[in-house]
């Protein structure tokens, strides 16, 4: 784990970590969205990725998911280049904005994603996710018929319906009601217990508190990497920049 100054490296490097990023950078016409970013996330580890708007959180997640190409450095998913067949099989991405096929129902989306990733016993898994996330009765609904919260729930179900070793979630609690948040926390705990590496981009103190580790980004640079310590975080961020810190 790299970093200096205020950065507290509390979790040692995982050479065989499911998610590794070294000197990862991305620039847009000279603007540094992410610069020389280092991060290893081990199996069964939940990392809260925090930082003010525009800090580079989503850029990092998109780079790890293979949706963006880095301009420097590298990131690996279970040792594979993002976007490769192997990496796509191991990584599940829950984006901040749900996207659906306009002519497929929620259930059909789940069936399709489960089949694309060769999920075992998909029907039982789909039924379980629909039930736990409160999507009962909405299985045949199209994406355009869902409210913001229901869209988010469907998106969460799509991320969890398939097998993976790494889960990247961008603001996953946005739009969820309190019971659904509790359900998601429980699901993240189960996923973690099953050995997945999880990175959750968030502004929420409850997610930060539930995380094993907190990684803070500011202006595209690593600002903190360590235990979710409110004291330390409050020294790095203004109250206005980070909710509840």
């Amino acid at each position, binding site marked *: 784990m790299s970093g200096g100054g205020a950065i507290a490296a509390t979790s040692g490097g995982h050479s065989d970590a499911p998610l590794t990023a070294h000197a990862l950078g991305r620039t847009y016409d000279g603007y540094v969205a992410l610069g020389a970013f280092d991060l290893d996330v081990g199996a069964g580890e939940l990392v809260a990725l925090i930082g003010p708007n525009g800090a580079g959180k989503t850029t990092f997640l*998109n780079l790890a*998911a*293979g*949706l*963006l*190409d880095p301009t420097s450095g590298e990131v690996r998913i279970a040792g594979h280049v993002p*976007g490769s*067949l*192997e990496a*796509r*099989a191991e*990584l599940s*991405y829950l*984006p901040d904005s749900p*996207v*659906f*096929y*306009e*002519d*497929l*129902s*929620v*259930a*059909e*989306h789940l*069936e*399709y*994603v*489960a*089949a*694309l*990733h*060769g999920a075992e016993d*998909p*029907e039982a898994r*789909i*039924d379980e996710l629909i039930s736990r996330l409160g999507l009962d009765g909405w*299985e*045949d609904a199209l994406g355009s018929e869902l409210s913001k919260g229901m869209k988010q729930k469907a998106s969460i179900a*799509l991320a969890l319906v398939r097998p993976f070793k790494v889960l990247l979630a961008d603001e996953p609690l946005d739009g969820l009601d309190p019971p659904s948040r509790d359900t998601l926390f429980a699901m993240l705990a189960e996923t973690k217990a099953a050995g997945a590496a999880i990175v959750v981009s968030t502004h929420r103190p409850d997610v930060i508190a539930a995380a094993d580790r907190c990684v803070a980004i500011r202006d595209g640079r690593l600002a903190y990497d360590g235990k979710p310590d409110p004291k330390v975080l409050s020294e790095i961020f203004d109250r206005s920049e980070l909710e509840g810190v």
Partner: protein
Amino acid sequence: MSGADQSAGTVLAAPDPVAAMKAMRSARRRRYVQRADVMEVLYRVYLGAIAALFVLAFLAGALHEVPADPSSVAGIRTDAPAIIGIAVAVIVLAGLRAGARGGPLAIEAAEVRYTLLAPVSRRTALRPAALSQLRTATLSGAIFGAVVGNFVFRRFPGSAVEWIGSLAAFGALVPAVVLGAALVASGRRLRIGVASAAGLVLIAWSALDLALGWNSSPTTMLGDLATLPLQHGASAWLAALGAALALAVLAAGLLGIGGLALEAAQRRAQLVAEMRFSASVQDLRTVILLRRQLASERPRRKPWIRIRGGSIWRRDWQSFLRWPVVRVVRVVLIAVAAGGIAVGGFDLTPVLFALVGPLLFIAALDLIEPLAQESDHPTRRLLLPRPGSELMRTHLTAPAVVMAVVLLGAAVAAAAIGENPGLALGVGGVVFLPLAVVLVCAAALSATNDPYEFVLNPQMANVVSLAPIVVALIAGFVPLFAAWKAEGSDSTRLGAALSTDFILIIFAMIGLGVLAWRFNKREREAM
């Protein structure tokens, strides 16, 4: 579990991810067909076919084309392949640049998010979309080529079958090679500079062919194919080589399609979805704005020349002086192409005159941008202490001046390309002013059209959307056709072209009147 249609079960029963993808796509296609109003589609096809047959029959009767003289035939045999090659190379350049920005495929955002992030070969996942685009483009190109061939054979040596066949093949191969080049650029993730350089090399190569009388460039070889009934010996073989090279480019593009950058695909998916919606409601203005975003075509931060002042006239020039290089080049190319097509109309078939107006209309849409922005922001416009119709009229002056320059450029290009520069400059000289006003008015009508004004009357909405393009087509066609049709000396032809100014002036007056009525009406409604 969903019971809708037949996708459930078949997808989950698929033995592997690729089979699941195919099962889902197949289910979606079935669903689309089930939901489509087949009778409505058939009715539209029927109407389109009847209209096309009527136009073709009318043109075939009206043209009375006479065989070209031997010197024209010889000139076309030697020069046309390279000229056509330059035109094809320009389109290939556009394809390469589109590919470097992630085109030409337009994939759904969900397809990027789910299918392209799944452990499925991206080449396999993307190939159907590419083949679908290829089918549509090659079929349209082949039909257009065959229609042109149907008129060309009446004037030149060679049978109808030879001309229709060679021009249909040419018409099919041009979109194939453009699509292939775009796919190569996107699959190999070429930088925009490299893609542009490759296209410019092709243009320069065909220009060199034209200057030296060679047939060495791959796009010149496609020009040999377009004029195959006139070619013999080595040129005929070069036409075959050109076709083979075009297919090779297409094959290379299809093989490398999996290299598409998802970043570009995502961005494109969003914009293309919006463009399709805008096109479905005939909102041409939004389509243009989205296309500019798709092409990353932004105004220059620093103008070419800085002018100060607050008049509308200056504001319009400030807009033109911030045009990016690509827009300047596009308008110049449109002028050259319009001139070249006009020459082609005189030398090959006057059917080509029908392309001149719509092509110049595209340039006019760029020129009308300042007025279009006033229309985009009605509140700002209403706050100005001037009547809307007066504001509109003042905004038309600068675009009309630039459009006139573009038309003179087209005339100069026609003079340089054709064998009768005097006639080209003469026709340009007698029609450029009224034609510029008509084209600018047509573009203004299109850019300020409210697509929802006739939302309850779709037929009326279609008429209002299509009218400016049809007017541009007629305005471009009539003077050229009159000059072509007139028998006798160049002065007779110029007189015939001059006589059509009357029609253009009527068009311009109607356009100005409708625009004034539209702006006044909106102003009244806002009060």
